C-alpha cells in the first residue's frame, strides 16, 4: 500500500512537474534573437574601441547568462564539498575567464548571422532549446543550440551547444578532471582560472 501511495505521489509530481516545465517557445526564441542581435550589432559589427567592446560584452554576458547556475553545475560533485567562499570565488573567476576568452574571439564572428530553426523541448523543467545555424563561407553551416531557462518570466542562457558539444559539459569534464589531479583541489583550479583571466 505504501508503495502504491508513493507511486501515486510520484506520478502526481511528474504531471505537475511537466506542466510547470512548459516554456513559451516563441518567447524563448525571441529572447535568443535579442541576445544575438545585440551581440552582433552593438559589439561585433560596431565601430567602437576594443575597450568599449569588451565592456559591452561583459554587460551582455552578465545580463543574459545565469552564471551562478552554470558554475554550480560545472563544479559537479565538488560544489558540495567546497566552502561558500570557494564557491563564490570560483563563480567570479569563471565569469572573468569566460569574458576574457570570448572577447578575444569577436573577429571570428564578424559578418556572421544566426538563422533560427525553431525550438526543441527539454527534459529539464523550465528549460528549452533554441536551435540556430550559422552559415559558413566553406562547407555546411555550424549548428548552434541555446539552452534557455525560464524563471518567473525571466529568460537566461544556461548552455550553448556548438556542433553537439555542450560548453557546460565540456567545462565540467575539464574542471572535475583538473580538481581530481590537483593537489590543491578547488583552490588549485581557482588559482589557474584567475591566472588565465589575467593573461
Amino acid at each position, binding site marked *: 500500500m505504501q508503495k502504491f501511495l508513493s507511486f501515486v505521489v510520484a506520478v502526481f509530481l511528474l504531471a505537475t512537474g511537466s506542466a510547470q516545465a512548459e516554456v513559451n517557445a516563441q518567447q524563448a526564441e525571441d529572447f535568443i534573437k535579442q541576445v544575438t542581435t545585440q551581440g552582433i550589432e552593438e559589439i561585433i559589427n560596431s565601430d567602437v574601441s576594443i575597450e568599449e567592446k569588451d565592456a559591452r560584452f561583459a554587460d551582455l554576458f552578465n545580463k543574459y547568462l545565469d552564471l551562478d547556475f552554470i558554475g554550480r553545475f560545472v563544479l559537479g560533485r565538488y560544489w558540495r564539498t567546497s566552502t561558500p567562499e570557494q564557491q563564490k570565488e570560483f563563480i567570479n573567476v569563471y565569469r572573468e575567464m569566460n569574458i576574457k576568452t570570448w572577447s578575444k*574571439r569577436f573577429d571570428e564572428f564578424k559578418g556572421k548571422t544566426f538563422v533560427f530553426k525553431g525550438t526543441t523541448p527539454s527534459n529539464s523543467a523550465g528549460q528549452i532549446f533554441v536551435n540556430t545555424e550559422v552559415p559558413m563561407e*566553406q562547407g555546411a553551416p555550424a549548428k548552434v543550440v541555446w*539552452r534557455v*531557462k525560464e524563471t518567473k518570466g525571466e529568460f537566461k542562457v544556461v548552455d550553448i551547444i556548438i556542433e*553537439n*558539444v*555542450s560548453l557546460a559539459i565540456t567545462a565540467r569534464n575539464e574542471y*572535475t578532471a*583538473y580538481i581530481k589531479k590537483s593537489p590543491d583541489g578547488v583552490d588549485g583550479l581557482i588559482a*589557474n582560472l584567475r591566472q588565465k583571466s589575467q593573461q
Partner: protein
Amino acid sequence: MKKFGLTAFLILSLAACATNPDGSKLSADDEESKVEYYNRAMFNFNYQFNKKVMKPVAKGYKKITNQFFRDRVSAFFDNLEEPAYFINNLFQGEIKNSGISVGRFLLNSTLGLAGTFDVAAGWGLEKKKNSFDQTMAKYCVPDGPFFILPIVGPATPRYVAGWTADAYASPLFWALIDVEDDGVDAAVVGATALKYINLYAENEGLIESLEAGSVDFYATMKSAFLQNRQKFVSLCAQGADDEETLSYDFDFGYDDAFDEEME
C-alpha cells in the same frame, strides 16, 4: 643509428611530457590510469608536434597563399570526399542523397574546375556529407574506447576504421594504386600533406582560442570529441529520422547519480 636516435628522442619526449596539468609527475602505477597515462603523453607529443612543426609550416604557407587560394584548396579536397559520401549514403539507404553526391562530384570535377569551385551548390545541390563511421553507427557497431593517435589526435576504433574505409573511396587512393609511377605516388603524398597543412592553417585560430580558455586541454579535447560523436548514437536505435533523443539534453540539475555518471 639515426633510427635509434629518433626512437630515443620520441621516448624521451613522451616521458618528459607525461605530467599532470599542474606540472606534477603522473604515476602509471594505477592500472586504471595507464590508458590515460598513454593518452596524455601522446596528446602532449602531438601538441608539441603541432607547435614546433605544423605551426611554423602553416605560417609559411599562409604567407605565400591568400584566402582565395586556401578556399580553392579546401574545395578541391572536399570534392575528393564525394565518392565516399556517395557510397555511404547508398549504404544507409539515402538513395536521393547518394544521387546528389554523384551529381556534385561530376559537376564540380568538370565545370567546377577539378573541384576547386562548388558550382553544384549554386544550383541547389547541397553537399550531403556522410562517412563509413556513420554507416557503422547506423548498423550499431560500437564506438570503442577513446584514445589518442600519433599526429592524427583524438580517435576511437570505429572512427579510425571509418576514416580508413573512406580513404579507399578517395580518388587520391585510386591514383596511388592504379598508376605505376613514382611521380604519381610522390604527388599523392604531397597532396595529402597540402591537405593537412591547409586544414591546420584554416583552423589554427580555433584551436588556439580553445586552448586559451582551458585549464586541462587534454580533458577539453576529449570531452568535445566524445560529445561530438554522440550525434551518431540515435542512428542505431531509432533510425535517422528520430530526433527525440538529444545527447546534450542532460539533466541540468544537481543530482548525485548524474555526477557519478559523468565523471
